[in-house]
């Protein structure tokens, strides 16, 4: 996208004797109009287009409009975006100029887009679309900003090999890093499993402890239950985690226990979550006690054909 609004050639107009010399008046008019457009920008929550500007100042010439926009752009009061075929303008606070001292408009735009992405960052590709620069130019800018430690690239867990850019000083959001469960792109499956097992151990022990409780089932169940905080405390004290885990992280693990059928969750009146170990309703069913239950080729097994109960290797092995 052009950083300058193209100026259209001015057609000579006849002078009006009564009006002040066009040059002087024109300039102050432009300054005044710039202010008005700036106000308009400030007022709007979303980007405004040329149409809105014309509504505000109907007799604004395209030339002047271009001048004003460029001025405001220079001063850092707005961003220019492309919406479909037209340009739109959005107000922004002119940010610390020191950061972009000496930078040209292109860099400024790239910077502002990255800044807007906050701590979630923005993909290279999306960045390119927004600022409308070509790849090489963009890469140059990015390299420059990176070397100046203005921005940084972070690998995202959402997609391997893709990077997001964000301001250097920001802490990447957990959706990017994967939070506690990711160590540099790799999902720490073993770590998660260990936590799962430890949480279960904690709950199971609690349950065993109330086995001979004489005070009735509700008391027993309450004593066997633990809040997510309780479990978090236990796990933290175990010291098996290199990273600091939050209560919410532990809740995620506890939820996997529920999905393992090993624990049940209940919600208290105050919204806190309680967990307790539970026993399966049934013992393993008959099918999985025979080879057929774990047989990978059960579908092909029949009376005719080379896979049948009489010559089944798994059966033979199992029967020995």
């Amino acid at each position, binding site marked *: 996208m052009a950083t300058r609004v193209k100026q259209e050639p001015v057609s000579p107009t006849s002078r009006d004797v009564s009006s002040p010399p066009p040059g002087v008046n024109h300039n102050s008019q432009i300054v005044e109009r710039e202010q008005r457009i700036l106000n308009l920008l400030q007022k709007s929550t979303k980007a405004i287009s040329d149409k809105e500007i014309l509504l505000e100042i109907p007799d604004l010439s395209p030339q002047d409009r271009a001048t004003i926009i460029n001025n405001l752009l220079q001063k850092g009061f707005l961003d220019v975006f492309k919406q479909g075929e037209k340009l739109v303008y959005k107000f922004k606070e002119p940010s610390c100029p020191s950061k972009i001292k000496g930078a040209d408009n292109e860099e400024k735009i790239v910077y502002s887009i990255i800044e807007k992405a906050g701590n979630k960052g923005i993909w290279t590709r999306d960045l390119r679309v927004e600022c409308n620069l070509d790849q090489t130019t963009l890469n140059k800018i990015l390299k420059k900003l990176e070397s100046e430690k203005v921005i940084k690239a972070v690998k995202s867990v959402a997609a391997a090999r893709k990077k997001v850019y964000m301001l250097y000083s920001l802490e990447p959001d957990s959706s990017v890093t994967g939070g506690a469960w990711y160590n540099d792109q790799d999902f720490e499956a073993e770590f998660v499993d260990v936590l799962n097992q430890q949480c279960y151990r904690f709950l199971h022990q609690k349950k065993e402890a109330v086995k001979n409780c004489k005070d009735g089932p509700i008391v027993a169940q309450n004593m066997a239950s633990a809040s997510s905080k309780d479990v978090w405390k236990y796990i933290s004290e175990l010291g098996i985690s290199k990273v600091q885990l939050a209560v919410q992280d532990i809740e995620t693990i506890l939820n996997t226990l*529920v999905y393992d059928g090993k624990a049940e969750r209940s919600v208290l009146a105050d919204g806190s979550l309680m967990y307790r170990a539970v026993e399966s309703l049934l013992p*393993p*069913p008959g099918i999985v006690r025979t080879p057929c239950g774990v047989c990978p080729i059960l579908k092909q097994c029949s009376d005719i054909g080379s896979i049948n109960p009489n010559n*089944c290797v798994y059966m033979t092995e199992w029967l020995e």
Partner: protein
Amino acid sequence: MSIQFGKVCSLILREHFGEIVGKVGTDLYKWGQKPLMSVVSSTKLSVEKVRQSLCILVQYGLATFSAGRSDRIAEYSLLPEKVFSLLRYPRYLYLIKTKFGVEAEMLMEEFLKAGFGSASRIIIRAATRLKEKKELEDASTNFPLLRDKFVSLVNKQYLMRCPAPEKTEDGKPSLIPKLTVAENQLYLPPTLNIKALTILDEGNPADAGDEGVYWRINFDRFHQDFRDQIMVTAISRRIDENGGEIIRLLLQLMYIRTEAWAQISNPIPFTELRDTLRKQDPQSPILQHLDQYLKVIEEDSSGFITRVGDSGGGQYCINMRKSFEALAWNCVENIIVERFGSKAARIFRLVKDRKFIEQEKIQQIAMIPAREAKQLTYRLLQENFLQIQELRKSMAQNAGPNKSFFLFHVDLEEVARMVLDFSYKALYNATTRRELESEENRRLIEKKNKVDSIAANMRLQGAAQEQLDEIEEMMAPAEVELFTKVMNRVQKLSEAELHLEQTIFLMQLFLNYSTK
């Protein structure tokens, strides 16, 4: 009905009644209701053999007949569920033994062996067997006891009257008897003349007072008991023994006020439950915390009971349909754990909980590495434990690959049917393999049995040790070793069959409740 189920039924018939009855039964299963001659022509057996087979099937309640297209031609249909019940005979007997004692067990055994029969005949036979067992001098001492046990079996509805042929106009038996029995007659105990039984036992004719009245087993009643057992055991595991006991009581009370196979019981007031418990066991530790237990059971995710009202200290319903749904879920999950691993089971439970969920979400919440999660999900899908629903993002036809997304969900009924079929297959395989093991080593088994029986006879007659040793030596040690091996294999397969039958029972129950 499924092919797999048909194969199992054929196998059961063959095992109990031989190849010929098996063929007839299979034919009826395949073709449904048909007359005698049609069976003859499709099985290519002799009329004689088919007649005998049909007699046997009808006698044991495995098939029925009715007037078909023509009034004069009887058409026969197989009762596959009854055929399958042959596998449950040991369980039926064991239940009676534990609930009513050995005399009742004898009676029931005679019924299982006879199909249907008159009270007098069955009692006499049972008495004879008891005499042998207890080595009594005289069988007749058992008659009153047996009669009483018989009556209690009838009162408890384990036995019921057979429908009798309707009286025809000319008093002669009709070609195709129409069998009916009045509702109020079903469980009316027989009137028996004990003295007459003694006379009959000696082989002389007498009128025991129950001419023309026949009894048969009410299998349904047993199935209710099995169902109850499953529920009690489940709650015992989940909560504790006391919880299980409460469920047992609730079920007892359910029978009084609700039809046996209703999906949900009529409400049972807390006060009644408490009073019943007090009457049965005044010292029961449950009494103190009865209300607590009810609350705990009610709040458990299995959903066996629901509290429906507050009068009478609280009104509770047992929800059969929900219970068996929870049990079916549990069974399927347990299968998945063994067959695919615990991570796969986690995925399954997650999909069950969320009803419809995308692949991305699955790996996120289940905390399983993306690749593994996808593989397991795929595997579950392929084996039909998960189902998939496609949602289009755009209405355009032939939209590209990114224009629709897939949601996973579980259709429990479909999965249950699949598991049931899968169980039939495993049962079929186990039985087939067992028969093979026996058949391959038939001579060896026969020889060992003969040797054993000779040795037993000789021991009874007080033979000398040398003679016994001689007999033992008829079998080489290698043969004995092989025999033991074969027997172990056969035993293992039989055990597997027993287990499978129980899983099948559970799944059949669930499907019955869910498709009503």
